[in-house]
């Protein structure tokens, strides 16, 4: 059987596609098992993938070019379009970079509201991911439950910010508005329901024999690989490394909340799913803490000069935050004019989807390609912007 597979010469499989042994199949961009709009070019031998090329760029809009042409305040509508399931991280990072370059401090209440918004968006994104993970292994039921429940979280956003998906809520100098009437009670109800749903998911998905059989030992990430590939976030934590931006470089008010960094040691798809399941619980808990500790009143934003002609002193900085997929960073360069000189977005999927996925997929059964890809929680628009 081993002779069927091509010989490995210094790390690369040497084979000839025309010999009728190997097929080249494309997964995506039009493929239900591929996350978002990207494509994998797989060379398979029997049931086994022997080579993978990731093709991105289907969603390239040239954000960094467009931002050079827009004033700072005009950049806000487009930065949140970079990551659809979790746009608030982009808004926060762009606003934080601006404030750091301007050297302004935002009010206390605004910090808490921003952290609350970030955690809620983490919750929504995690719910979507858990659904995708179960759907990638063919269990559509859990996917339907979680993605349907995500809508209730989006309702919270709608009440708070007025928008459902893209809520330009964090503006430079604070947030756009305070909490509306009765929103906190509604939030508590939604959070309780979410934790109930998560327990159901644990019974249906994480304790399922077939799910374990397929996910355990799939796409193992070792601690040595983490730095070599630039792996961040849950994918790095599943290898046993305690790395969380919220703990390492606390931003906003995360140093006043108490939470533990979730880690696993196995490093396979199952442990990644468990970590994300526990981090969903963690987000719910953090939301409750924030709602409890938040100052009841106070200013939610400072008054800036006319933002349309806002000039930002020259300088360069890098701000980072913890998104669901790991460290999310903005590198901003200002030359003292009204337009940003350069804004570079560092999406966590950048290293996960290109370099890491191409190497993890080698030798994987073609039935598990979707499961492995989803378990890395890659998201194409961060790669190409």
């Amino acid at each position, binding site marked *: 059987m081993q002779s069927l597979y091509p010989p490995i010469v210094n790390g690369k499989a040497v084979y000839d596609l025309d010999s009728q042994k190997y097929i080249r199949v494309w997964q995506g961009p039009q493929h239900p098992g591929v996350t978002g709009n990207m494509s994998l070019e797989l060379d398979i031998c029997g049931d086994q993938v022997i080579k993978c090329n990731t093709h991105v760029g289907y969603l390239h*809009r040239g954000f960094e070019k467009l931002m050079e042409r827009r004033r700072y305040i005009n950049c806000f509508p487009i930065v949140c379009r970079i990551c659809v399931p979790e746009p608030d991280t982009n808004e926060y990072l762009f606003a934080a970079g601006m404030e750091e370059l301007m050297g302004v401090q935002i009010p206390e209440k605004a910090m808490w509201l921003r952290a609350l918004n970030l955690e809620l968006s983490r919750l929504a994104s995690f719910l979507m991911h858990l659904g995708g993970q179960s759907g990638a292994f063919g269990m559509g039921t859990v996917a339907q439950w979680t993605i349907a429940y995500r809508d209730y979280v989006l309702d919270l956003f709608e009440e708070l910010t007025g928008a459902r998906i893209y809520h330009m809520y964090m503006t430079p100098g604070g947030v756009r508005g305070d909490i509306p009437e009765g929103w906190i009670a509604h939030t508590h109800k939604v959070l309780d329901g979410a934790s109930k749903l998560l327990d159901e998911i644990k019974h249906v998905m994480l304790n399922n024999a077939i799910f374990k059989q397929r996910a355990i030992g799939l796409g193992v990430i070792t601690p040595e690989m983490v730095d070599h590939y630039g792996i961040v976030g849950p994918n790095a934590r599943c290898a046993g490394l305690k790395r969380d931006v919220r703990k390492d470089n606390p931003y906003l008010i995360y140093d006043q909340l108490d939470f533990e960094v979730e880690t696993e040691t196995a490093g396979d798809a199952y442990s990644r799913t468990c970590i994300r399941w526990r981090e969903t619980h963690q987000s719910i808990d953090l939301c409750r803490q924030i709602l409890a500790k938040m100052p009841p009143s106070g200013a939610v934003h400072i008054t800036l000069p006319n933002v349309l002609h806002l000039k930002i002193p020259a300088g360069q900085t890098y701000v980072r935050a913890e998104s669901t997929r790991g460290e999310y960073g903005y590198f901003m360069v200002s030359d003292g004019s009204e337009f940003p000189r350069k804004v570079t977005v560092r999406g966590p999927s950048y290293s996960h989807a290109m370099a890491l996925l191409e190497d993890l997929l080698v030798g994987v059964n073609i039935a598990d390609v979707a499961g492995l890809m989803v378990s890395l929680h890659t998201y194409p628009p961060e790669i190409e912007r």
Partner: protein
Amino acid sequence: MSDIEIKDNPDIKSELQTPPEPGYSEWRKDENTLYNDGLPEEEKDWFCDARPQKARKSVQVIENFLNWARSQSLWILAFGTGCGAIELRPLVTSRYDISRLGMQPRPTPRQANLIMIGGYVSIKTLKRIVRSYEQMQGPKFVVAVCSCAINGGMYWDSYNTVKRIDEYIPVDVYVTGCMPRPEAVLAGFNKLKELIKAGKAEGQNLYIERFDWYKENQKKVIKDWNMPDYNW
């Protein structure tokens, strides 16, 4: 109702009345064959080079019944072309359940009737959209969701996204907004059903009618045209 504003496509109506202008025929050998000059020589005989023909309708009574059946079972091509794909997932879940309307996502273009253009269309995606659209069979319908597919939206000055999708494939229903709410998309689907029942959603024949014009527009933006002129 400002964000649930849905209009039928004015262009299609006008284009249906105005005959297609002649010309743009330099890549056509004769009436019924295409050159496929984008393909390398050794691949030319792998692909069919017949020119697509207009599909004939049957008797009006039967056609009305068939249109009703088509409108009752619309199969969406599961192709998330942009941000709009994020709303396709809530659409199949419990709150807005499009399977009530007899719709279901299909993973292969051969079996889909409806392609939903979700948001901005970059050049690389436009190529795949054209392929998928031409591989779809029968009366096929296009719903353009989000402003970016209609007039470029907030990427009006981007160098990599097309500004209006209806120059490359015929669009039946537009749903404006960024993002349009799922209710808006549902309303768009219902509008499409009305159009189908009324027999107005003839995008397939329009595409064949103005085939040269659409091809010209596509080849203008897709610089590396390495696929057959019509993907059978």
